[in-house]
């Protein structure tokens, strides 16, 4: 999608602008914005909390990273201009560097000012979040004057660095960013890598990991240096190879392409089955949590992504699944149940779960589905909360244990081979994986069916879909029911995994998080939804589940929000976009691209053409 921004290869020398030929307003705007963002981040106390997480011992913590990346990015972005076809464009030069430096300097001044304020006033009253350590951190454990002074050069240097990146060649930029990304990635994935190295201890690579990481966390200096070197080397030499592999794959056609796809999928599936055997508890727990959300997100994706129904109360079905499975399998259910009611096996309970979830989908869906857009969203939001309150209420409390919830839920016996419960995250992961596979299959098949096409049509234009003979109410109800059943699976597994369910496990926030996962990942795309869950739930963590960056847990929602806004502005189609959805969102650009490829047809009459295959690709005169 780039028709609007046609990057012309600039083989001719472009004129550079003079250094002082600045868009001063823009520079100051970005500078002030940067200062505000820096002060905001500092006052959320994020630097202090994240300071505990060392990235490179002993020089660089995530706390400082949370501040340092901002001036560089702002310094870069202030002079980013789309190169528009037919418009004059300029070479990057000292002007861009100066703008970056100024932006960085102004931003740094913001932090200097904050340091000054913190030293002289007690901001504890109005701003509860920051702690006294912030001042120490901002002044690098020295006196305040140092702190005030040091942020100016830091901002300046980082901003200049951002501006300088304009001048680097594409290759240099790639090499640098790869070096940076590999260091950060290895630092962030520390727990997983340590876990892996234990699982693969027989490979005898533990010494490597010991060299790489410091005992109390964080990369060692030489480890970071090696990683940076490795990252840049692979960027410099690996790119061509990756390119060629990609081209070779794209050149494949028909059956061999399908075969390549199948092999890839099988390899992935095999990895997912085998890898957990070598992983320790922490990583498996993480994977299990991600899996629970993949299951939820795939279900919601059918409702929102395929059928276009904005359901904000999706957590209701998660709750129904959890409670039903919990109540049927535990001995410790609410006191109103008759004594003779047996304790069911989880698999048997699952049948009831599916039926109840489908019915709930029908009952909640039927009144809601006729509404459109915002009304529907609001009403589903209400229903989601109503279900939770019902479980909490005195009325149903005898059956659901009210605030005490349902506890002592046993695990799942699998053919007497294993018991799936929270203490064995690997088993939980396999169970989740199994249901995720079902959900992927269901989404994949349904999208390519009569029902899937009807959903597509409804999403495009509901009244026309109806006029073309589609019973829109039925089609949408189907989506609601399928989504409900998938969510109830997730709930049932949660009950067995955690061993208890409480009304609090099913707050509105869960709905929102699942929706964010779907949007950020790529609505309407199975792979996108999975990537979304891995990135958000795996790295940042779910509403109640810690992710890889446990230190972030307090700021999870903040980051979710920022990410969501940023995605909506810059990449509304998500990380891994659905082709069709991208077309919907960027129709103008798509059409321009198609026009450039000569695919737009004109009103010329094919019969009259001498070559009558129709693909003349004539431009409109």
């Amino acid at each position: 999608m780039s028709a609007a921004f046609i990057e012309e290869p600039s083989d001719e020398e472009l004129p550079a602008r003079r250094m002082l030929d600045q868009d001063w307003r823009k520079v100051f705007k970005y500078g002030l914005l940067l200062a505000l963002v820096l002060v905001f981040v500092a006052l959320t106390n994020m630097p202090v909390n994240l300071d505990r997480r060392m990235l490179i011992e002993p020089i660089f913590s995530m706390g400082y990273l949370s501040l340092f990346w901002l001036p560089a990015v702002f310094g870069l972005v202030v002079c980013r201009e789309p190169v528009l076809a037919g418009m004059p464009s300029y070479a990057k030069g000292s002007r861009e560097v100066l703008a970056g430096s100024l932006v960085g300097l102004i931003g740094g001044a913001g932090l200097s000012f904050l340091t000054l304020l913190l030293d002289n006033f007690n901001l504890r009253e109005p701003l509860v979040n920051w702690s006294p350590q912030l001042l120490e951190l901002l002044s690098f454990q020295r006196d305040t004057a140092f702190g005030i002074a040091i942020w100016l050069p830091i901002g300046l240097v980082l901003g200049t660095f951002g501006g300088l990146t304009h001048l680097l060649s594409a290759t240099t930029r790639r090499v640098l960013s790869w070096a940076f990304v590999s260091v950060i990635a290895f630092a962030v994935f520390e727990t997983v890598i340590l876990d892996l190295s234990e699982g693969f201890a027989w490979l005898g690579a533990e010494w490597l990991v010991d060299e790489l990481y410091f005992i109390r966390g964080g990369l060692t200096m030489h480890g970071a240096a090696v990683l940076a070197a490795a990252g840049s080397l692979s960027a410099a030499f690996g790119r061509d190879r990756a390119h060629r592999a990609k081209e070779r794959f794209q050149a494949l056609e028909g059956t061999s392409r399908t075969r390549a796809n199948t092999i890839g999928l099988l390899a992935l599936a095999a990895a997912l089955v085998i890898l957990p055997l070598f992983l320790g508890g922490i990583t498996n727990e993480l994977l299990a949590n991600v899996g629970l959300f993949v299951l939820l997100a795939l279900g919601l994706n059918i409702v929102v992504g395929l059928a276009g129904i904005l359901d904000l109360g999706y957590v209701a079905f998660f709750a129904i699944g959890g409670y039903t499975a919990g109540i049927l399998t535990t001995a410790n259910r609410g006191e109103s149940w008759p004594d003779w009611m047996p304790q069911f096996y989880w698999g048997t309970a699952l049948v009831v779960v599916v039926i109840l979830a489908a019915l709930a989908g029908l009952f909640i869906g039927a009144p809601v589905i006729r509404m459109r857009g915002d009304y529907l969203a609001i009403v589903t939001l209400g229903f989601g909360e109503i279900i939770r309150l019902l479980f909490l209420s005195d009325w149903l409390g005898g059956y659901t244990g009210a605030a005490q919830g349902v506890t002592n839920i046993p695990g799942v016996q699998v053919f007497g081979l294993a018991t799936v419960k929270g203490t064995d995250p690997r088993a939980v992961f396999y169970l989740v994986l199994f249901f995720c596979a079902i959900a992927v299959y269901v989404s994949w098949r349904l999208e390519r069916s009569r029902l899937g096409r009807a959903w597509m049509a409804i999403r495009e234009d509901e009244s026309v879909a109806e006029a073309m003979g589609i019973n829109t109410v039925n089609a949408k109800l189907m989506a609601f029911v399928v989504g409900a059943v998938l969510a109830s699976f997730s709930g049932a597994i949660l009950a067995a995994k955690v061993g208890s369910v409480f009304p609090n496990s099913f707050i509105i926030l869960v709905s929102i998080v699942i929706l964010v996962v779907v949007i950020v990942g790529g609505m309407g795309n199975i792979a996108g939804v999975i990537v979304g869950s891995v990135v958000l739930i795996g790295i940042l963590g779910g509403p109640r589940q810690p992710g890889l960056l446990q230190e972030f847990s307090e700021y999870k929602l903040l980051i979710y929000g920022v990410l969501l806004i940023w995605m909506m502005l810059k990449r509304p189609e998500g990380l891994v976009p659905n082709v069709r959805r991208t077309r919907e969102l960027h129709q103008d650009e798509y059409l321009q691209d198609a026009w450039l490829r000569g695919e737009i047809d004109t009103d010329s009459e094919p019969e009259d053409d001498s070559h009558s295959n129709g693909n003349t690709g004539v431009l409109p005169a």
Partner: protein
Amino acid sequence: MSRRLLTINKLSVTFGGLHALKDLDFYIDEGEIVSVIGPNGAGKTTFFNMISGMVTPTSGDIIFKGESLLGLDPNQVTAAGIARTFQNVRLFANMTILENVMVAQHCRTKQGIWGALFQTRPFKREEQEIREHGEKVLGFFGTRLVGYRLDQPAAVLSYANRRRLEIARAMATKPTIILLDEPVAGMNPKESAALTRLIGELRSDWGFTIVMIEHDMSVVRDVSDRVVVLDHGETIAHGTYEEVSTNPDVIEAYLGRPAEESA
């Protein structure tokens, strides 16, 4: 004599205070092509909207094949056998051309979730049939909508081809009656002549009965058995093209100038 398909009795539609249609009577027999003409804002599109169930009439009755259509949803009307096109082309722009005609067969097919999940034999057979019927109706327009075009989104089509695809989509619903709302609008004279021929074929080769709204008098003259003239929501004339085009009321209300010139 052929069978009466659609009868409309004393039908009125009001929007707030505006009488879009007033005590309208209409009928069409199997195999007829009837044109509805009238100046802008006469209520022609409203007439179609009302037949297809998108607008509810305030009074009157619509009888199709002996049963009332009143109170039916648009999808039920389509299922009963009345398909339509839209004056302001309303395709599913981001669906492919083939998908546009495939989805239109929804009410003629029935495979649901089970078939799709277990890839049952009836499911596969039905998918095959949907695809084949889709390609067949697209083939009606020659090479324009088939071949490499099948998998392109409808948005890349030219205006004239979008109109053609809309007709193909209506054909795909396997209707008895097709309502065409200004099918040649925006086409050049050569294209509209070709489409006029095709409209004739819709009746002779495909057996559809056709109601057509059209401003282009040459098209109306060439294909219609009868012409109904609406003005301010009322029928002001009714008969063959020759009868209507010489009717002084029509000339005054609609043509505003001698009929020969506009032809």
